[in-house]
Structures are given as structure tokens and as C-alpha cells.
């Protein structure tokens, strides 16, 4: 099994300390978190973590089980990049005089769909959102023109096949949830066959 990028989506109760509890599941195994985002979810009171790592599926599956084992975690999913829609946001601070003088830069920004979010006499802050490669490409292009400061956000991702967490959560509130909730997504039939052959 080879490593690839996986996006782990975790639904949790919002609780102080849970961030640490989840983070140490990775650090204990010396697994680098490429990006981590916490935010509210579509359900009031339920938190959503989006974590990006580069690992084999076997490792990611085990990590998700360890995450789900935490008392305050409702559910953990993992997806490859083609199973999600994802974005990262970046901001670039560029000297105003360069922008004013060099038309080329302006064209560049237009090309990359950048938006000015702050314009000052001395500098302009642009913002783009997109995939990592697009953002990286713009940095490269801006570097020769005196990029003063750059920052990129963590990844946020939507799972293409997800129907949201509302229905699932209702199930969690029952004392005797249906098999569907209990079922570990990662151990369905096809998966089992894979394990068989190993």
C-alpha cells in the first residue's frame, strides 16, 4: 500500500481538550498533520475537524478507529482527494507600487482569480482560494515582484457523498442505534475481501 493524501473528517462534541486528544493520536505515531481545521458543522453544537495527512490507507483506517474511540468523538471519516471538494485560502501581501507599475502583476492576479481585501498606500493584500498547487503557483509567480508576506489556511473539505450529519446524529441520540450508525464504515464487505487476501 502506498501513501497518499487523505482528508479525515471528524464530528465531535465541542469540548476543551479534545483538540489535544485528537492531535496526540497522530503525534504519538510520529505522523505529521499536514493541515488541521476546526469549525462548527452543519449541526448546532457539533464540531467538525478536517485533518489532512499523507499515509497509507491501512494507517488512516487505524487512526480513524483510534479517533472514534475517544469518548467525545461522534464519527470519523476518511476520504481520498477525488471523494471530496476542497479548498484552501491564501493571502498575499504585495507592495502597492509594484502592482501599480507592473501591469504584468495585475494580469497575473486576475488570471489566478485573486481578490484585493485590503488596499493601502504601501501594500495590497490579495486573497485566493483553491487547491494547494494553484496557491503554490501564484506564490512562485509573485516572488520576483517582492511578495512581503504570505499565509495559507488549513484545508476545508466537503465529502461528495455525504448527506450531512443531521440524520446520523439523531441515531446517536437513541439509546439503541441502528446497525448503520454502529457499523464501522471501513469494514464493509469489499474491505473484508481485501483483508482476506493479505
Amino acid at each position: 500500500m502506498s501513501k497518499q493524501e487523505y482528508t479525515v473528517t471528524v464530528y465531535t462534541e465541542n469540548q476543551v481538550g479534545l483538540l489535544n486528544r485528537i492531535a496526540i493520536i497522530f503525534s504519538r505515531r510520529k505522523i505529521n498533520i499536514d493541515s488541521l481545521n476546526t469549525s462548527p458543522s452543519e449541526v448546532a453544537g457539533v464540531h467538525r475537524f478536517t485533518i489532512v495527512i499523507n499515509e497509507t490507507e491501512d494507517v488512516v483506517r487505524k487512526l480513524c478507529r483510534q479517533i472514534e474511540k475517544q469518548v467525545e468523538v461522534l464519527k470519523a471519516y476518511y476520504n481520498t482527494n477525488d471523494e471530496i471538494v476542497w479548498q484552501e485560502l491564501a493571502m498575499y501581501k504585495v507592495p502597492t507600487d509594484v502592482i501599480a507599475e507592473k501591469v504584468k502583476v495585475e494580469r497575473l492576479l486576475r488570471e489566478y482569480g485573486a481578490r484585493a481585501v485590503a488596499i493601502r498606500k504601501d501594500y495590497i493584500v490579495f486573497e485566493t482560494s483553491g487547491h494547494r498547487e494553484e496557491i503554490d503557483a501564484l506564490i512562485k509567480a509573485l516572488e520576483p515582484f517582492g511578495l512581503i508576506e504570505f499565509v495559507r489556511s488549513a484545508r476545508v473539505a466537503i465529502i461528495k457523498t455525504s448527506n450531512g450529519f443531521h440524520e446520523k446524529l439523531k441515531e446517536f441520540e437513541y439509546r439503541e442505534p441502528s446497525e448503520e450508525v454502529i457499523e464501522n464504515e471501513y469494514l464493509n464487505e469489499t474491505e473484508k475481501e481485501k483483508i482476506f487476501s493479505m
Partner: protein
Amino acid sequence: METIHKIKSNTSEQKTSKPPLQGTERENISGSEAVMRALACEKVDTIFGYPGGAIMPIYDALYDHVKKVNHILVRHEQGAIHAAQGYARTSGKVGVVFATSGPGATNLVTGLADAMIDSTPVVCVTGQVYAHLLGTDAFQETDVINITTPVTKWNYQVTDATEIPSVMAKAFYIAGSGRPGPVVIDITKNAQLQKFDFDGYKKIDHIRSYRPKPIVRKKYVEEAAKLINSAEKPFVIFGQGVILGKAENEFKQFIEKGGLPTAWTIMGMSAIPTDHPLAVGMLGMHGNYGPNVLTNDCDVLIAVGMRFDDRVTGRLDKYAKQAKVIHLDIDPAEIDKNVKTTVSVWGDCKETLPLLTELIEQKVHPQWLERFHEFQKKEEETCIIPELNPTSETLSMGEVIKLLNELTHGDAVMVTDVGQHQMVACRYTKLNHTKSNITSGGLGTMGFALPAAIGAKFGAPNRTVIAVIGDGGFQMTIQELGTVMQSQVNIKIIVLNNNFLGMVRQWQQLFHDRRYSFVEISSPDFVQVAKGYHIDGRCVSKREELNDALTAMLDHKGPYVLEVMVGKENNVFPMVPQGCSVAEIRLK
């Protein structure tokens, strides 16, 4: 306890009889008192603890409850948590610990790690500095929540007393349910002192984000049964899950119906009597010959409530590769973690085992069982007989255990520390009853046995509790003799003294060319030390004295320390050397 229920029911009666007055009848109590009420409602009868500045309000509240709950003052907080573990392991209940902030709390960490890896239910209440001082490096402030996060099943800091009833209810529910584990509740001093309107204590049995028991899916039980029924060389291996799930009877019925040869991990030991006709011994690095070798020969391996620790599996890529593996476990994270399963049956084995038993055919496997016995014979010749009936002048650890078996008839609780004596004791002890083998299996914590034996005795007051400890491990928590003295804990302590950190010395002999690097350890006169604590004791080194000494120890009313001088350079065999497969187990 009764009075508390009375108070509660009075309140509700008043509530129903009078028009609602916005809860003015609610009792106004302190956070500390709420802690004590919670313990009463959880039927806690024993607390192991040590006071200090940040937990003084709770100790003050405890003062009013000492008639109903027994507080055991230990000599070090590590002793408190190991005692709580011992208590939990013999009683099947949740162990409870009190400790103060800072050093009190950090002293718990080893025990928390031990309880975490050995799935022992413990609730630790730690005092914490005032909430307004958090993060200021106040006197005796440590970040207890972050220090304990990796070694707790759950932890929580309370800064407001009104949270105490619900948080304590969660703590007990989480610690004891599903796969049990340790919980830390860190309560700031202001919350302990704060008065609030107490609305009664409600035990809980549901947290929406927490699934202690996976739903049993019959389909997998059926698949497992099919595999077992088709097996010619089925082999059952089990761990502590059988004991934690209180499924000893269900397990026995299962193996007996299927005629299944059965071996235990060190943590599973005693779930079935050690002399059960289908019992083939212990797995693991110093386990028995047959079960280790035949793991790599069976056709269906059925693992129940165990987690395939590396001390059990040896080299993983050569572990049971020929076998179809069935794994019954309550914790989904254990499935396929180390060993890929063919069929996994998630669930509480108390529920899954009867379903499985119903579907398997009544069978016997005499030839297959005979294979185990053949290996047993070989092991007897090369390892067991020399250990139990040594010809050497010096005593062996094994002969002490053998004599002990004859005197206790297998009815005692055996608490062991960590090292050669632990392996010898677990290899040779006869145990008839469940919850009788108390040892630090996963963490291998030296110093565990003495405090754990203290707790084990409180958890099973009517049973004989014997602690078998090495001269090294005894000196790690020897201060708990003070606890034995003060609380008059009737435990029998056997120190097997080989003047070495024996297990490490054995490895240095076998794998480091006998370069004995810092394994020679001197000891005080243990009998004199015991005497200093007003505990009777004796030291023996001759075979002729042994029977008499053990009998005297067992007959003695009250605690006793028996030091037995044993051969200095004896080794424990068989042994699966690290990095080798279970089939490469060495007999010498």
C-alpha cells in the same frame, strides 16, 4: 448511603406536595460535598488517597462520611492508584483515588498508564489550584489535564461546582463501561468550596458520542461459527476481556461445547480454572511451549477479548499466517490492529459468546489436544521439572510457587510484580477462581504488586491475597508497608530475592554476552524493615525450611513478609526471544 437517598426522596416529595417554589427546597451544598454524594450514589465503599492543599475541601467533606466510606491513606500517590487497580481487578468495581494538585497528580501518571493499557476502571479525583490561578504557575499547579490525556480514557477539569454531579456520573459510567479505563476529574479549589443548589445525583447510562458496546451483528457470528465448525485444528486464545465482560461461564460453555483447546494471555489468566481439561497454558514470551508453537499450526485461531500484544505474538509477520483468524472484541480499534482477521465479531463477549456457542457443533478434538500434551511433556522435561524440583542447592522460584499451590489449593488471589518472579508465578500458579491473577501486564510496572495487593484485599476481603515480588520491585514501592501497617491489611508478601534485577540480568546473559550492567542490586534486611513497620516476617534460604515458612505465613493472623533467597542466576524458560516467531520458542 440511606440518608442520602432519604434526602433525595424527601426533596422530591416536598416538590410534589408543595406548589413548585423554583427549587428553594433544593439543598445548598458545596462542590466537595457533591463529590461525596456522587461516591455514595455510585456505592463506593473504598477510596485510596493522599491529601494536600488543593484537595483539602474534599478531605474536609470526607470527614463527615467516614462511617460509610473507607479511606485508605497510602504512602505515595502511585500506591493509591495501583491499590485502586488491585481493588478494581478483584472486585469488578470501579476503583477510586483522591490526590492533590501538582506532585500529587503527577505521581498518579504511572498508574494511569498502567490502568489504561490494562483496561482497569479507575476514577481519580485530583484537586487543582483556584480557577483564577490556572496558567499562572501557581504553587503546586500542573496542567493535569494535558499531562494525563494520553493515559486516560477520559478526563475533565471542573471549575464550577454545579458541574460536579453530572461530571462524576459521566466519570463512573465511562470508567466502568465498554472497554474500561482510567478517568481523571480535576477539580479546582474554588469549585470544591463553591456552594450550589444540589438537584440530586443522577447516574447515567448514555452519552451520545460514546458507544461502549458495538451492536452484535449476527452475520459475523454465523461466519465465525461456520469457520469453527469446519476447523480440524481450532485453537482458542483469550485475554482479560473474558473477565472484564464477566463472561467466564459463557466462555467455558463455548470451549467445552466445541472441545476447543484454550490458552490464556497473562491478563486473561484465571478466567477459567488453570487445570481445566481444555486449558493448554499461557501464551507469550515466557508462556508454554505448546500454545506458542501450535499457534503457527492451528487452522482456525479464535481470539477472545485480547489485543495481540507483541509479547504474545512475537514476530508479527510470522504469526499464525496459516490460520484463519476470528477475533471477538468489544473495541473496534483492536480489530485488525496487529493481526488481520478473517472474521471479526465486535461486541461484548458476554453477548457474542452465547450466540456463537449456540451455532457451533458439539465436538471433541482428541488428537489435536494430544499435540498440546506432547509439547507439554517436552516442556516438562527440559523446563518445568528442573524448575519445580531443582537439584541445585539454592532454591528456585518455581518450587516456592509449587509449595504455595499445595497450601492454597489454588484458592488464593495471586498478585505479582514485574520480572522473572512474575513469569514464574504466572507459569506455575494454580488458580481456581476468576479475578485471581493481578499483575501489570501491558505496562510491566515494577512496584505494582505491593500496592495492588493492598487494593486487591479490599476488593476481595474474604480471600487470601498473596503478593509475589522481586527484590528490585519491592524496593520501588516498599513505603506502602506503611499502609499495610496503618490499615492492618492482611496480605502475605513473598519476596523472591535473587540479588539481581533478574529479568534484565537474564537478557544481558543471553543477548549481551553476560555483560551485567547495573543489574546487581543490594537490599536492606527486608525482615527488619517489615519489623520496623510492626509487620511480622521471616527469611529462608533452605529447602527444609520452606514448607514450614509458607505455612506459618499463611496461618499468621495479619500481614506477613516472607523473604525467600533463591538462586542468583536462574533463568526463565521457555522464551520467545524478541524478534522471533512464536514457533522459534527456546526451551533453554
